[in-house]
């Protein structure tokens, strides 16, 4: 593994090397959370995943705490995205993708047969790496899930759309453009539009799969601010390549390597005092 490049995105993180531990600790004091006492909203247990015959996840065990931000970090190809894509069973769109083990959400194993996928996916919204506005107006994008899951009057719908756009910090930028196509917005705006579309249906969890890797730094910081405010009402799981981002936004961090969860703990601890050598090597950029 000599010379493995950790930084893959010079466009977004000019310097992915993490800030000195003390700074991180000062910026976020989340170590006083009592991890054991907090309610887990998602528990992955003995989770394995297969692309055809190739195994991509090995015995993953992870507790996602309610109303906290959990970051999933690790080099590319380590299974970060694969892991969170089991939570809403989106991987099932592809024939030879299989997950075994358990993902307990709200007391039930979502991987078990008989799960109501439509409701599961409403309750676990997903934001993708590339902004994915639907081919319709800004308003219709946000109203998409509302129309699908709820029976609302016209005025209720308009109120909910406005509310979702405000909570996504996008309202002021698009209030005069509600009738324009979603794809006409800038990349960063499109991503916030997707967040608005997602939270409009009142999910419990928002899964973010590298939400800021395709947008510029200013837009990225807006999304990070947004996550801070969204955390009051939602549980957020964010996959990211950018370790500074993980350190800035998350309460807990899981480090993935080659399909295994190497280390999981409070973000401050992972970044200031990692217990595993691999974790330390990764976050200090000395990956070997």
């Amino acid at each position, binding site marked *: 593994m000599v010379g493995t490049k950790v930084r893959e995105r010079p466009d977004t993180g000019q310097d992915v090397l993490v800030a000195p531990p003390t700074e991180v600790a000062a910026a976020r004091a989340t170590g006083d959370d009592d991890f054991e006492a907090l309610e887990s909203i998602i528990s992955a247990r003995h989770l394995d995943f297969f692309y055809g015959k190739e195994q991509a996840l090995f015995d993953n065990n992870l507790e996602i705490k309610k109303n906290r931000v959990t970051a999933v970090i690790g080099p590319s190809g380590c299974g970060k995205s694969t892991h969170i894509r089991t939570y*809403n069973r*989106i991987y099932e*769109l592809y*024939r030879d993708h299989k997950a075994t083990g358990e993902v307990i959400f709200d007391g039930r194993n979502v991987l078990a047969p008989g799960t109501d*996928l*439509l*409701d*599961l*996916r*409403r309750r676990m*919204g*997903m934001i*993708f*790496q*590339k902004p*994915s*506005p*639907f*081919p*319709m*107006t800004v308003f219709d994008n946000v109203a*998409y*899930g509302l129309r*699908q*899951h709820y029976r609302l009057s016209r005025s209720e719908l308009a109120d909910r759309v406005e509310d979702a756009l405000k909570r996504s910090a996008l309202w002021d930028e698009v209030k005069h453009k509600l*009738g*324009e*196509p*979603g*794809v*006409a917005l800038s990349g960063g705006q499109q991503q916030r539009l*997707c967040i608005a*579309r*997602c939270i409009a*249906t009142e999910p419990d969890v928002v899964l973010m799969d590298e939400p800021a890797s395709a947008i510029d730094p200013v837009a990225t910081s807006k999304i990070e601010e947004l996550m801070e405010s969204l955390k009051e009402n939602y549980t957020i799981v964010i996959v990211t390549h950018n370790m500074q981002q993980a350190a800035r936004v998350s309460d807990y961090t899981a480090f993935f390597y080659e399909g295994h969860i190497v280390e999981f703990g409070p973000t401050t601890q992972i970044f200031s005092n990692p217990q595993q050598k691999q974790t330390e090597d990764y976050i200090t950029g000395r990956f070997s």
Partner: protein
Amino acid sequence: MSTVELDVRNQAGLPRGAAKAAPRTHRSFGDPAFRVITLICGLAVAIAMFTLAGVLIFNSWTAISELGVGFLTTVAWAPSNGRYGALAALAGTAMTTAVAMLIAVPLALVIALLLTELVPPGIARVVGTGIEMLAAIPSFIFGMWGLFVLVPFMQESVAPWVTESWLGQVPLIRPGATFQGGGFSILTAGLVLALMVLPYITAFSRDVLLMVPRVTKEAGYGMGSTTWEVLRRISLRYALSGIVGATFIGLGRALGETMAVAYLVGGDFLTVPKSLFDPGTTVASLIALQFNEATTALDVSALTALGLVLFVITMVFQVVAHVWLRRSQRTAGGRA
């Protein structure tokens, strides 16, 4: 450092005299030359269009000046009686094309959606290739098939059964005065036309549906949509402009198709069909069948005027399609 290395390699590998590569000259000619060539080709298309329109107008001028608007409002085409009417043929074209499109477009869309979203890739490839091969069959063959298979079937089974049931009292189905048993009829021609345009519309629609980005579809499923909702609200919206384009390609073909229709439609140049089971004619088949019998200058000119009418109709449809597409893109923002 690099010079040294180059020298070494030259002595080792390259033939004498090639030691110093000459700098390439004239590279700057590439772009202007390319521009000129593309300009010529582009202009050629435009010139061909305008020349075509010009020749059509010029050659039909005698008919236009002598017959005037009456050409379009007169029903029958009976040159021996001095009557040149396009109305019967226009009505026949409209009816056969409508039948063809009403059947082919929904069917093509369903097949395209099945092939792109629901059927396992292996089967989709086989079926898709089969459909593309259907597009390669000459129209003559479709005409023969219609003549030997569909005409007797319509005549013996479908037409009697339908016209004698309660359906036989419904307008457009109730046989008119020219009814000849329903074998050679607007419906038969329309059905064969549907079969002919189906592969085009299916193949183009499938191609545009395949271009819907994976992440957009995943986002749809991620919102808790059913397959049907993703297809209808996202994939179809995304591919809409391409599908409309595909439909117009099919429409153009249906409007202009000559031989297969000429065999099957019945060749009644005199009346506007009252029923789908009545015989009739279309603009294109009328031109094809009458050209050999055109004797006077006016005969030829009138037939050319028919061609001009067909030309204008297809142009109008193209323009309408473009305007409509541009408007729908402004609100939906789908791909062009």
